[in-house]
């Protein structure tokens, strides 16, 4: 079942093998533990709340954390979307950044849905 989840993630352009080798000492069990922890991480919810209240700082902090998470787990599409949003915040284009939220949300939900189905 876990191999299937990894295949599923790879099918979503996640670089699971690279992430496992780089950050998890090739320990699949720990990697999958962290993949499931991804569902419990509050960053996405914090980002949604911040976007709703138009709180730039909070939104930038949340998307920063989300980006790091995606990077560590090798969720490349999510890494790309969150990196774009963070970059927009950093160059002061908050409206542009807020406009990217839906892309981040969509990719996040795809990963979350995939993982949840293997829980």
């Amino acid at each position: 079942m876990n191999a299937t989840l990894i295949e599923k993630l790879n099918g979503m352009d996640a670089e699971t093998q690279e992430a496992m080798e780089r950050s998890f000492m090739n320990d699949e069990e720990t990697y999958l533990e962290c993949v499931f922890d991804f569902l419990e991480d509050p960053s996405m919810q914090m980002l949604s709340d911040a976007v709703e209240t138009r709180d730039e700082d909070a939104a930038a902090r949340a998307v920063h954390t989300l980006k790091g998470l995606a990077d560590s787990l090798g969720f490349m599409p999510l890494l790309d979307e969150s990196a774009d949003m963070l970059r927009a915040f950093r160059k002061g284009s908050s409206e542009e950044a807020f406009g990217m939220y839906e892309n981040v949300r969509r990719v996040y939900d795809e990963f979350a849905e995939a993982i949840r189905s293997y829980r």
Partner: protein
Amino acid sequence: MNELKYTMLVADDTKVNRTMISRIFRDRYNIVTAENGLEAMEALRREKVDVMVLDIIMPEMDGFEVIAAVRADEKLKGIPIIITTAEREQSERRALELGADDFIYKPFDSVVVEKRVNNITQKYLLEREKMDILIREHEKRAAALKRQAEEDGLTGVYNRIGFRSCVRDNLKKHSAGSALLLIDVDEFKIVNDKYGHPMGDELLIRLAACFRDATEPGDVVGRIGGDEFAVFLRSAGSRQNALNKANALIFQAARIRKEIGLVENHSISVGVVYVHKPEEDLEALYQIADRALYIAKENGKGCAAVIEQADAGSAEKGDQPDVFQSIAVKYVSVDEYEAPNKLYADIAALVDHEIHGGALFLSAQEGYPIKYVSQTLVKALGYQNIEELKSVCDGKWEYLIVQEDRAHIVGILKRQLARKGHYLLEYRLRKKDGGIFYVRDNGMLGEPENGQPTLLCLCMDVGDIGE
């Protein structure tokens, strides 16, 4: 499973990061985790942390604040800190300036993380272990020096300085119910002069060991002068207990002298002060015990005298101190009683301090007149005075009355009498009204009546056994 020697604190608000770091180091460190800076500080104060991997951007208290707080804390400032940061955060410079030891980029490369953390911590831990060893050696040396300064080189017990220091500490906590015994080795000069100094040293060593063995954990034994010892009984509990302990030491001392080949029947003299109320003034207690020791020596040595702390106070106002005598010497050097006059002299010493005890030695034999009578005893028996008591003696009784804890003297006297061809018929003491005052097979008396003092009474018929 091996117990891990070192502890790592991983502080990161993202659980995945905490898990990753823990995975890398879980085989070599006890891992403690924190979700923010405040939790990290709590963990640092709660646990003995050897290294910290610290995220910079965290809620509540960020990584910069944690570094500053740790480096400002005297107890924590030496802990190596490795920060974790995203490559483009550019926070490593500030963190290093604040005192972080190194940084690692996210996403973590487990090999880089492992190498960097190990490089930092191995150096630190090695230095700390060296320092710990130095500190332990220093402490050991300091303890050895202290011991040397406070220990008597010959006997291994405390010397005067050590004894006083230790007893002073004790008096601050345990003075009420304690007792101080000053001990003088009787005729020690004779031992040195007649048998040589090695024998004198042997006697001192054996006595010190005996005092140490005879005391309880927490009691203090010291050699405070050439042939002077002192014993502090932390929980004597009562004046009688303190006196009993002194008598036990006198008995042991006499045994030791015989064991090592000293033929003279000498022992030790003991002055005791019983401390029944809190007293931290060691000098005051010394003075009282010294007075008691003087009394013991005046009474022929080889015995103990005890003065209670409060009695000493009344003595200063001119009253007679309430002195309890011991005649322990009488059974450890019993051979001396081959000479009756010596026995008389010892009993006389006892009678002189008849407040709570006394002795009566009456003899019907020619040349052995009534010698000493305790007024306390005379009254206890119902007689008006000694003359009246004498008048009722029918010429065939000998009496010896000693303090209540001297039951063993009965056995000694039995042997004495047996050597003279006499035997002990019974123990009793006749009252004026013809009744028996107290009777016990072992010579011990029952409860005192009408406030009369409790005495051990021995009444002997020393007539010839004949056919």
